[in-house]
């Protein structure tokens, strides 16, 4: 039933290694009106020392506060009138601009990557803004519920910590630490640069070669095998006097390169992420039981180099939480015990295969895909292979991966809102 003859997604990628050691990926896109550039630096919050959580985030997010060549105002004056939008985070810095000014964007991001200034006054300003934000988020049940859930799943591993840090850790971070962290970790051998737009790949290469020439080569990222708490029933509550309770039920998930990835994407679409009411959880918990406006379940979305999480989420009134948690468990068990219907399987697969080109209209999306493909080591024909993998998933595959990767009797449960701790503890037990 998969719709035949779908238009193909054209995403040509030319790959270069720059003299500095960074990888450059260029995807020419004829007629594009917007160009996007993304610089990814491997490492991220994993490199935050204990007690300095938020260091990687601040290092990346403040690269736009001035460079050796331009201060922050000059950068804004150059970029903004050309539609230039730039933002950094723990994983690097990226931006987009009207296509004809792609060189300006590449030049600016190269400056920010290679020679950010971290002026003390600007660092202090933005650190204080982050502290203010963390103070407000301290009482936000949605934020705290999500954070509690991560902690219950990942324990003391850095994935269980807040990427922005805490008020205590951020208070200890200053400009000197940002410069040192940047010097140690923002090095070319860990860098991937992606450019998408109406560009000539060779022209991009020549320009990038010159702009990134002074980026220190450094050493590749060293990683250690992660350790996570064993899957088990655990629970926690963030009490808050609000109208709704945010409920998170789940456990440790899979890595992005797991061979079951395609089957789990299909499973997710049948169980809890298919559009509208095509997934079981939205159809039953939202449509039939009227429990919520926002409800979903997903294991593939957070899969990365390290394992993601299986998360079933609902925002609902306190009197409906028990029905919701029971509903989640019932649907997880059902997809393990009964093969999915042929029609719902085909609907999910058709969507996954057919909707793929829709997600690649924006240049920024193309650039972020190129980074992801490089970081995960996907082959050049990965997208085609992935679509073929979706199309090949069977009812038996879905049941097998549901049994192998979903663990309804070993879930953690985090709740944030007007609900008692004892009640959450009772709900956590299957």
């Amino acid at each position, binding site marked *: *039933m998969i*719709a035949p*003859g*779908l*238009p193909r997604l054209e995403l040509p990628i030319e790959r270069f290694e720059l003299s500095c050691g960074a990888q450059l990926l260029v995807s020419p896109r004829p*007629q594009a*009106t*917007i160009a996007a550039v993304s610089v990814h630096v491997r490492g991220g919050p994993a490199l935050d020392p204990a007690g300095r959580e938020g260091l990687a985030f601040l290092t990346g997010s403040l690269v736009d506060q001035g460079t050796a060549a331009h201060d*922050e*105002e000059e950068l*804004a*004056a150059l970029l*903004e*009138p*050309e*539609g230039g939008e730039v933002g950094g985070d723990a994983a690097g810095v990226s931006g*987009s601009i*009207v296509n004809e000014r792609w060189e300006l964007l590449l030049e600016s991001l190269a400056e920010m990557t290679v020679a950010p200034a971290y002026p003390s006054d600007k660092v202090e*300003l933005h650190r*204080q*803004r982050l502290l*203010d934000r963390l*103070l*407000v988020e*301290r*009482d*936000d*049940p*949605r934020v705290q519920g999500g954070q509690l859930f991560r902690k219950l799943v990942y324990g003391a591993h850095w994935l269980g910590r807040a990427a922005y840090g805490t008020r205590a850790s951020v208070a200890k971070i200053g400009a000197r630490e940002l410069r040192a962290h940047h010097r140690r970790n923002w090095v070319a051998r860990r860098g991937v640069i992606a450019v998408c737009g109406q560009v000539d790949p060779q022209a991009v290469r020549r320009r990038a070669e010159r702009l990134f020439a002074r980026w220190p080569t450094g050493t590749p990222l060293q990683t250690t095998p992660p350790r996570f708490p064993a899957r088990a029933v655990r629970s926690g509550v963030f009490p*808050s*006097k*609000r*109208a*709704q309770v945010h409920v998170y039920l789940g456990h440790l998930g899979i890595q992005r390169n797991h061979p079951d990835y395609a089957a789990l994407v299909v499973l997710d679409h049948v169980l809890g992420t298919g*559009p*509208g*009411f*095509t997934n079981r959880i939205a*159809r039953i918990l*939202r*449509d039939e039981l*009227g*429990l*919520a*406006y926002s409800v979903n379940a997903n294991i593939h979305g957070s899969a990365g180099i390290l394992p993601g999480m299986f998360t079933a989420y609902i*925002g609902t*009134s306190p009197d409906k939480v028990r029905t919701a948690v029971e509903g989640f468990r019932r649907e997880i068990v059902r997809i393990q015990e009964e093969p999915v219907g042929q029609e719902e399987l*085909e*609907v999910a697969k*058709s*969507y*996954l*295969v*057919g*909707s793929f*080109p*829709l997600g690649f*209209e*924006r*240049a920024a999306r193309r650039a972020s895909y190129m980074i992801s493909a490089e970081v995960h080591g996907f082959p050049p024909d990965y997208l085609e292979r992935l679509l073929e993998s979706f199309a090949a998933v069977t009812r038996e595959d879905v049941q097998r991966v549901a049994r192998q990767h979903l663990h309804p009797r070993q879930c953690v449960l985090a709740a944030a809102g007007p609900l008692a701790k004892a009640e959450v503890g009772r709900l956590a037990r299957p």
Partner: protein
Amino acid sequence: MRDSSLEKGGARIHEHVLENGLRVLLAERHLDPVVAVMLWYRAGARNETEKEAGVSHFLEHMMFKGSARYGKGAIDRITTTLGGTNNAFTTADHTAYWFEFASDRWESALEVEADRMRALLLDPAEFEAEKQVVLEELAQGEDDPWRVLSQEVQSALFPRHPYRRPVIGYSDTLKALGPGEMRDYYERFYHPGNAVLVVSGDIDPARALAAVKQHLGSIPAGKPYREADAFRAPAEAQRGEQRLTLRWDDEARRLCIAWPTVALGTDEDCILDLVSTLLAGGRLSRLYRRLVIEERCATSISVHNDTRVESGCFWLFAECAQGTQPAELERRIDAELERLARVPVARAELARAKRIIAAGEAHDAESVSDLAEDLGEFAIDADWRLALRTLERIQRTSAEEVRRTVAKLLVPDRRVVGWCLPQEKRKTR
């Protein structure tokens, strides 16, 4: 049948009006093999009676719950099977339904829209089940302090006009609403004469028009809008400043100021776009630079020119930095607004703001859905050509026009000032 064409975002735009009154905009662009289909109805919270508050948005939900040919869930199933996506949204002035498909199958959207335009089921059991979902959506909004604050400010800004009401309605009006009342509203507003269809992307305009006629051309025009719409008092002018304070159980001091302004598409609407860029568009804008960067009395600031069919709001949102008194932040905002009302903006600053807006046009039309949304919103609320003319009007705006508009509209005695502050016990912590 009328026909005209112009260009926007690299797309050639053709306009047609069918005999039943349906206005059709076809925006042809072949960058990607993708097509967006958006159907807009002139039916939003503004068109509701007091008793019907929330019916427009609730009806938007029910449009996915069954029509003659598409039973409950069928629209999502068909969209998904064809590898497409769909969604919908409701505002104070209109409701819009959106599909995006690969370009060889987008016509399926027309079949769906035709069926639910003339034969919506509104099954009573489905109606009651979906009401619970809408009530949960309302509860979700009640947990968002910015939403609660801006709603309170909006209610004060429009004391009699329906623009005062939240688009989602109130729990009491929603609970009291029955399928019969929704059916009445649907029959008043959901027909070709009260709708605009936009098809944008990888299309052949002649074939697209033929498909539109085939699926939607035979639906009767329906009751003229003027007869269908309820009477309402005009959006009255503000008399004197109003102030309100809410309490929330966190440490934020949130400020929302709103002024009543002008209708969409007027000259002053374009000038207010420029004003909002001068005040908070980018890192060199006046309010961001002074309040966030230099004086550090706000952690964030934004403004929004929200013009509507019958009036408009100019919104200002700011969060007070810890250690700054709310009154101090307000005083500094006032000083910047007063300066903009008194001293014409410098030529270079004005030119920069105009360039930011012009460059933003490319971002605003990057996807076929962006393009369909921009054209459709202007078309349903006023005239789609405004999507093209606004930039030209902004380009010829003078510094004196900016000054005069701010001095006329954004003054203290026309505004509502709302604060959301920590609960009393927190103030002493």
